[in-house]
């Protein structure tokens, strides 16, 4: 029998590991907590998700966070949740469905990967469309998967602003009368340098970084009627 570890100790240990980008330590904290009797549900909902929210809070308060921490937060959260879900007493409810990809002509995938990790940890079903995705494919896949949010990642100005990125997705949603059912979120470097750009490209929302995007998308998914 392992000594009992309090939830506060687990949260503290996990958060410190995340901020230090130390995956091994984060997993160790989780496994120690599990061995001491904490439920997989508590690990996900009281440790992992609050840690993501704390990261978002730190970002919004201009506390020092960085890309490596965002990346590790997402990767660790994704792997812990993937390990814990099969141990849940009941399968968790799907909190929303999202398709995500990089805009046509854009081959960057890191930001998208961070967002996907964060969304999966939030019980959101994510379909990764990969890179260089056409506007028509974004919409077709969203319809096919019953997604209420399309995430369009673009790391370059021309792929963010061009007609085959978010603007193209908006055009098709409009033509097909899907605007009430499917929302668009954008992210990537150009949006960090121009906070109004998301409006120019016809998106409903944007996020400064992948971890924040997870929270914004979860909110959008809740707003859209199913």
């Amino acid at each position: 029998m392992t000594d009992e570890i309090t939830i506060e100790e687990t949260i503290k240990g996990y958060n410190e590991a995340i901020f230090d980008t130390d995956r091994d330590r984060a997993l160790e904290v989780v496994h120690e907590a599990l061995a001491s009797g904490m439920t997989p549900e508590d690990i996900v909902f009281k440790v992992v998700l609050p840690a993501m929210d704390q990261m978002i809070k730190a970002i919004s308060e201009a506390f020092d966070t960085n890309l490596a921490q965002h990346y590790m937060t997402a990767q660790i959260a994704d792997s812990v949740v993937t390990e814990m879900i099969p141990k849940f007493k009941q399968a968790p409810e799907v909190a929303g469905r999202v398709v995500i990809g990089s805009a046509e002509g854009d081959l960057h995938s890191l930001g998208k990967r961070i967002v996907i990790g964060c969304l999966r940890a939030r019980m959101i079903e994510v379909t990764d469309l990969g890179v260089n995705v056409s506007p028509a494919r974004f919409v077709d896949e969203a319809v096919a998967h019953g997604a209420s949010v399309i995430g369009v990642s673009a790391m370059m100005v021309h792929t963010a602003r061009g007609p085959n990125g978010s603007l193209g997705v908006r055009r098709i949603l409009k033509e097909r009368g899907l605007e009430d059912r499917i929302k668009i979120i954008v992210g990537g470097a150009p949006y960090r340098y121009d906070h109004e750009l998301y409006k120019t490209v016809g998106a409903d929302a944007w996020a400064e970084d992948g971890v924040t995007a997870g929270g914004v998308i979860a909110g959008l998914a809740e707003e859209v009627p199913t």
Partner: protein
Amino acid sequence: MITGMDRLAAAVRGEKSDRIPVFCNLLDQGARELGISLREYYSKGAHVAEGQLTMREKYGYDNVWSLFYVGKEAELLGCREILYATDGPPNVADFVIKDYDDIANLEIPDDISASPAFSEERECLRILRAEVGGTYPICAYITAPMALPAILMGMDKWMELLFLGPADVRDALLDKCREFFVKEMRAYRDAGADVLLYSNPFGSTDIVPMKFFSEKALPWIEKDIEAVGSQGVVYYCGGARFNKVIDVVLEKTGIGVYYLSPLDDIASAKEIIAGRGLTCGVINDIPLIDWSRDEIRDEVRRLIDAGMPGGKFLFGTLVMPLAIPEQNIRTMLEAAYEFGSYGRDAG
């Protein structure tokens, strides 16, 4: 006639010229000047050189670039597929490193200057040196060893390897990238590049935690600069902020020029550098696409007012997207010449 090199040299020495040096990083725009496609433009070093010379002459700024596009370095290491766009920079479309076995097989050319993949850059540099060598600084873009794997295997795969290991594979790749970096730096210097932009996002606390920077990134930066010397080297983190590390980088490497992020605070950077080097204040050029004339002038003035007092200051741009209207480029540059003029002191 005062040249761009005169202005840069004066700024580095902390002396006044007619105005502060103004660097404008126009790249893809060269194809538009020549009336050819980006693919055709970048196929010949002579085109790139002509584009650079034409644009510098037309707008009057102080530098020229030997950089084609960032993926060019991946081509030197075996990348054979580049994705061209009509409205933006070319990108690496086929990663040289697809799995860890490819790292062991990655070959660094013995002499980059003699490498066929360098021939057009060499030609570009030959023309630039013949036309403006010694009068306008010739800039080269060199990705730091810690950042180079991002264009060889993709940023997400590199982050995974860098932070999660295996450590021996990571270190083997970093060693190869260092070897390439040293040779590449030599090739650019031999070909006549004066300003060597050392691009390293991992040297920014926007990208890595301070602990990682201090324990991992900084020792690599120190070794990089120790291997090539700091002459002409410019510290740049790909547009990410680095005010928090300037002091230690300056102290440990002796790099004398800092090309800030548009998101860095210029006055604070100048305070940290404290006359020990040249501060380059960088405009956020993405909103330049939509800004009005007044907005552009106000922003240029704000940056110059923050950086020019006390000298040792250069005004620069970041990536200058192709979508920026020509008129806005002119407005920005005219404002930089006007507000950056030392005659303004007397007026």
